[in-house]
């Protein structure tokens, strides 16, 4: 690519010098136009491509490569091939399967709750509610708050003795003793899920709402004349018309949560007893706490494969009805 570019630019110069006296020759001019187009396009997209290659393209290949070697922070100069040793270790100590389980449990819970609640709130905000315009703005606020601030805030709300969450639950008689939200094996993942919902629900609602407002109103009118009730309208108009939006938004939410690091790191650091050790916590800990970069890279590689398979399956699942209802965008 760079060689090609240089060639174009050189010939381009020649042409432009030669071009002046022969400007009336239409054929020659078109050729130089085309070359200029290529050069211009290359100039436009090169900076972005170079940046992306440097910090994403090369690292991802390098990370796959590292996963086959013994690499620690001290032995970065001399890489030692370890015959799939990193992968062996990963499967031997059972941490991997456990964290895959935790990751999936977390992602499925948070995304399905987010979708169900988001849909509910979007439907309400799409209706005739007083102050709905202001509400739409206000509910977006948690979305702009940095994730670690959200994490700290919820840690304070979940604080066992003086946290407001336990106080409310106890005064409503919903629980008889203070809950150890972040240090109870059964509650910790839920605590993180609630914090994630708080931060991510606004985005989900806003996107679904934007999709709903793109549905032409006369479809509902026609349905109403045909005697369709609210429920039927929802299942036969709103949901099918929103299919693309739903697909995109839930996929974004899944990916976002598969990668989720700050909430777990701040709120639980993967504990108690690995109850919240997701793939991202596991590979971060392996690489940067235990300083075994090779094993961390191997975790990352497997994780990458899992995500690719997941999004492939996801796309598959969503295009099931494409043949019949696919024409509706």
């Amino acid at each position, binding site marked *: 690519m760079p060689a090609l570019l240089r060639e174009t630019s050189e010939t381009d110069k020649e042409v432009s010098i030669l071009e002046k006296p022969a400007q009336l020759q239409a054929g020659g001019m078109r050729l130089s136009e085309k070359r200029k187009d290529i050069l*211009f*396009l290359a*100039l436009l*997209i090169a900076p*972005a491509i170079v*940046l*992306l290659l*440097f*910090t*994403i393209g090369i*690292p991802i290949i390098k990370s796959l*490569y*590292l996963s086959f070697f013994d*690499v620690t922070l001290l032995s*970065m100069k001399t890489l030692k091939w370890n015959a799939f040793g990193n992968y062996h270790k990963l499967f031997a100590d059972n941490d991997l399967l456990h964290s895959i389980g935790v990751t999936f449990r977390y992602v499925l819970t948070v995304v399905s709750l987010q979708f169900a609640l988001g849909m509910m709130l979007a439907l*309400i905000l799409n*209706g*005739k*509610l007083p102050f709905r315009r202001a509400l739409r*703005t*206000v*509910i*977006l*606020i*948690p979305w*702009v*708050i*940095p994730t*670690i*601030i959200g994490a*700290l*805030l919820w840690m*304070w*709300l979940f*604080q066992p003795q*003086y946290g407001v969450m336990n106080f409310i639950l106890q005064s409503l008689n919903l629980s008889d003793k203070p809950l150890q939200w972040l240090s109870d094996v059964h509650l910790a993942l839920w605590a993180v899920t609630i914090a994630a919902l*708080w931060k991510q629900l606004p*985005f989900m609602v*806003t*996107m679904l709402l934007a999709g709903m407002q793109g549905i032409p109103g006369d479809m509902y009118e026609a349905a109403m004349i045909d005697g369709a009730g609210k429920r039927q309208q929802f299942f036969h108009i709103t949901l099918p018309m929103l299919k*693309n*939006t739903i697909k*995109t*938004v839930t996929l974004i939410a899944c*990916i976002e949560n*598969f*990668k989720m690091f700050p909430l777990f*790191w701040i709120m639980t650091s993967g504990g108690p007893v690995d109850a919240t050790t997701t*793939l*991202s916590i596991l*590979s971060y800990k392996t*690489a*940067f706490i235990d300083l075994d970069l090779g094993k*961390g890279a191997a*975790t*990352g*590689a497997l994780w*990458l494969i899992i*995500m*690719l398979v997941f999004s492939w399956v996801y796309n598959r699942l969503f295009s099931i009805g494409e043949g019949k209802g696919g024409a509706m965008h």
Partner: protein
Amino acid sequence: MNRSKRTSAFLSILIAAAFLVFLIFPLYWMLLTSFKDNSVLFKLPPEWWPSEPVMDHYRKLFADGVFLGYYRNSLLVCLTTTAITLLAAMFAGYGFSRFEFKFKSLALFSILSTQMLPVVSLLIALYTMYNKYHLLNTRAGLILALTTSCLPFSIWMIKVFFDHIPVDLEESAKIDGASRFGILFRIVLPLTKPGLLSIGIYSFILSWDDFLYSLTLINKDELRPLNAGIAIRYIGELSYDWSSIMTVCVTSIVPISLLFLFFQKYMVSGLTAGAVKG
């Protein structure tokens, strides 16, 4: 009929109110806690309204130069990241919108799919690369990494905006003898202002949110941005000083909240354009 309609309207107001409490109350609690004296903080039942608000925590925080240092680092890093993202995304988005070329859809698809990659596994290799090129513990290195995490979606968003601008406008400018960059800067960009604003805001929010890159790529305290600084300095001790932490939190969301207040219209339109129409 009428009665059931009224109950359903009432029900939806009730549910909306519940959501509102869930989304907004924590923020109120954060603000309130930051004004509470430690003697009131651990009172049960808690004070729902400050009886004696104190400014001590803010005073202490601003007297401590370290926090302001983190703040400055964050602003520096995020503003530069935003500027570079804007430039690179604008050019690339224009290129992708206006030109047809081989492998274009493949290129666009691969750019967007980088969003899917687990950052931690990128980071392991990036760390070794940065170590080799002496980019660890530099602002430039952090900015580079953050720029590329903002770029993919920004390119996608701004491309959608460019797609909506008619090509005819550019053709007539071309006939008038404007240069290619002249067309881009004088004709197309002014029309894409909302789009530029949205990607600018998006990049700023995303880089202000960053934790993982700055936690790993920077380990000099004087270079640390806010999030990593907060995590390392204020957490991890045995007992938490909650009012101080909440004060730090309130202070650190100020720039983001201001951005939100002034530009929320562009934020929403940009995101929906990129995510839904794309």
